[in-house]
C-alpha cells in the first residue's frame, strides 16, 4: 500500500510543486494521475522512488516511510519499483536489450532467466526486432517502449509510469495501457500519469486529478471528463 500523509514538496527555486497531499493507494490497485502541465504529477511520482525528497510529510511505500530510508535502502526501494520515466532515461551506451537487462543484472538474475524474461517483455512491447539497436537509433515511441520494458521486466511490486504513451500512436498506446493494466491485476500497484483523456475515459479506473499541486478530484471509476 502507498500512503501520502500531509506531503508537500517545494523545490529549491521555491516552486511549490505539491501542497498538503493526503492519499491512499491500496496494494494491487491501478490509478491514473491526471492534471494540466506543471500540476505536480511527475513530482508525486518522483517522490515515490526517492528521486526527490518531500519537504514535509510522510510517504509510505511497501510498509516503510521512505522519507527515512538509509543510503543502503534506497537502491532496494528502487529495485522494487519499476519506473517509466517521462524522459525515458535510457543508457545511451547500451543497446535495447542491454538496457532492459540492466534492471535484471542488478538483481543478479541468471543469464538464462534473463533471456527468457527480456524476450518476453520486448515481445509484449513490440520492439524485439530492435533489440540490438542503441537508443539514438530509435524513434521517440520506440524509446518510450524500451523504458516501459525495463520498468516491468523484473515484475516489481510497484510500477510507476510517467506519461508512458506520450510518444505513441493511439493503437500502440492502447496496447501499452492494456499491458500496464494487466500487470496491475497480478498484484502490482500501478500508478500511471497521463494526458490521454480518451484512454482514461475508456479504462474506467480510479483517477486522481491534480491542479496546482493539490488533489482536486479523486474518482473511483474515473473518467477525465468527470474531473474537469
Amino acid at each position, binding site marked *: 500500500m502507498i500512503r501520502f500523509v500531509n506531503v508537500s514538496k517545494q523545490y529549491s527555486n521555491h516552486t511549490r510543486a505539491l501542497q498538503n497531499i493526503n492519499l491512499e493507494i491500496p496494494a494491487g490497485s491501478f490509478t491514473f494521475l491526471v492534471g494540466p502541465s506543471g500540476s505536480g504529477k511527475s513530482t508525486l511520482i518522483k517522490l515515490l522512488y526517492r528521486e526527490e525528497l518531500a519537504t514535509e510529510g510522510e510517504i509510505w511505500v511497501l510498509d516503510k516511510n521512505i522519507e527515512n530510508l538509509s543510503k543502503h535502502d534506497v*537502491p532496494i526501494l528502487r529495485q522494487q519499483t519499476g519506473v517509466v520515466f517521462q524522459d525515458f532515461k535510457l543508457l545511451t551506451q547500451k543497446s535495447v536489450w542491454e538496457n532492459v537487462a540492466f534492471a535484471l543484472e542488478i538483481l543478479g538474475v541468471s543469464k538464462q532467466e534473463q533471456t527468457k524474461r527480456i524476450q518476453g517483455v520486448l515481445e509484449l512491447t513490440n520492439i524485439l526486432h530492435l533489440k540490438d539497436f542503441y537508443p539514438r537509433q530509435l524513434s521517440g515511441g520506440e524509446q518510450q517502449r524500451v523504458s516501459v520494458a525495463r520498468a516491468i521486466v523484473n515484475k516489481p511490486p510497484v510500477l510507476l509510469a510517467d506519461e508512458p504513451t506520450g510518444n505513441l500512436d493511439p493503437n500502440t498506446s492502447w496496447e501499452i495501457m492494456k499491458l500496464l493494466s494487466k500487470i496491475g491485476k497480478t498484484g502490482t500497484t500501478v500508478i500511471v500519469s497521463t494526458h490521454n483523456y480518451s484512454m482514461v475515459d475508456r479504462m474506467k479506473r480510479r483517477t486522481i486529478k491534480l491542479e496546482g499541486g493539490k488533489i482536486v478530484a479523486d474518482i473511483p471509476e474515473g473518467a477525465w471528463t468527470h474531473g474537469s
Partner: protein
Amino acid sequence: MAAEGRTFHQINYALGQGIQNMVRSPFMSLIVISTMMIALSTLGFLLLLLSDLNHVSEELSTQLKIVVFLEDQQDINKLASDVEAIPGVKPPVKKITREEAFESMTREQPELKELLKDNPFPASLEVAVNSTADMAKVGTEIRQKPGVEEVQFNPELAEQLQQVQNGVQLVGSIIAGILILATLAIVVNTIQLAVHQRHKEIEIMRLVGAPQWFIRLPFLLEGLIFGIFSSILASLLLVLWRLVPYSQLQRWFAFLPLPDSLMPLVSIGALLLGTGVLMGLLGSTVSVHRYLKLEYK
C-alpha cells in the same frame, strides 16, 4: 549459496561493464590513456635521467683513485688484500709492480731507459673507492698500514665531485617530487573529467536501483586498466628512447661513462606501473565518489 552465486554473477557483469565502457567510448579511453602515458613517461624519463647522472658521477668518482706507493721489498699482494679489506674500498685494487712501473715509464719516455741503470720506481697500488665521500677516510687508513711509503690523492677534487653529486641529487629529487605531484594531479583531473562525462549514466543507474558498489566496480576496473596500459606504454617509450636517441648521445659523449644497461628501466618501469595503477584506481574512486556521495533525495 544462491546469494553467493548471484554476487559472483553480478561482479562478473560489473567487471564486464568496465571493459564495455572503455571499448564503447574509444575517444575518452584514448584521451585518458594518452594523457596518463604522457605524464608517466615524463616522470619516468626524468627518473631515468637522474639514475644515469648518478651512474655517471659514480663512475667518475671511481676514476678518482688513491695511489699508494710501497716501501721496498714489501709483499704487494698482501698489502693489496689488506687494502681491499678496508670498508669503502671498491675491489679489485690494481697492483703495479716495480717492473711494471719501470716498463710503463720507459715506454712513455724511451730515453729514460738509457739513463737509468737501476729501477728507481716503487711498486704501487691504485685504489678506487665506492664513494668520493670516503676518500679522505680511506686514504688516512691506508697511510697507517705498515709498508706504505706514501699515499697520494686529491681530497679537494673528491670533495668537489661529492658536492656536484649532492647537488645533482638534490635538484633531481626536487624535480622528481614536483613531477610526481604534477602527474598525480593531472591524472586525477583527467579521470575526473572522463567520469564527469558519464554522470548522467551514473544518475540513471542509481535511479534504476543499482547499488553503489555495482556502479563503482566498472570504474575501478577501468582505472586499473588505464593505469596498466598507460604505464606499459610509457615504459615502452622509455625503452625506445634508450634504444635510439640515447645511443646517439652515447656516441657524442663518448668521454662520459654513460651507462649501457637497460636495468634501470626495469625498476623505473615497475615504479611507473605502480604509480599508474595507483593513480588510475585513486582517480576513478575519487571521481565516482563525487557522484555517488550525492544525497539520495
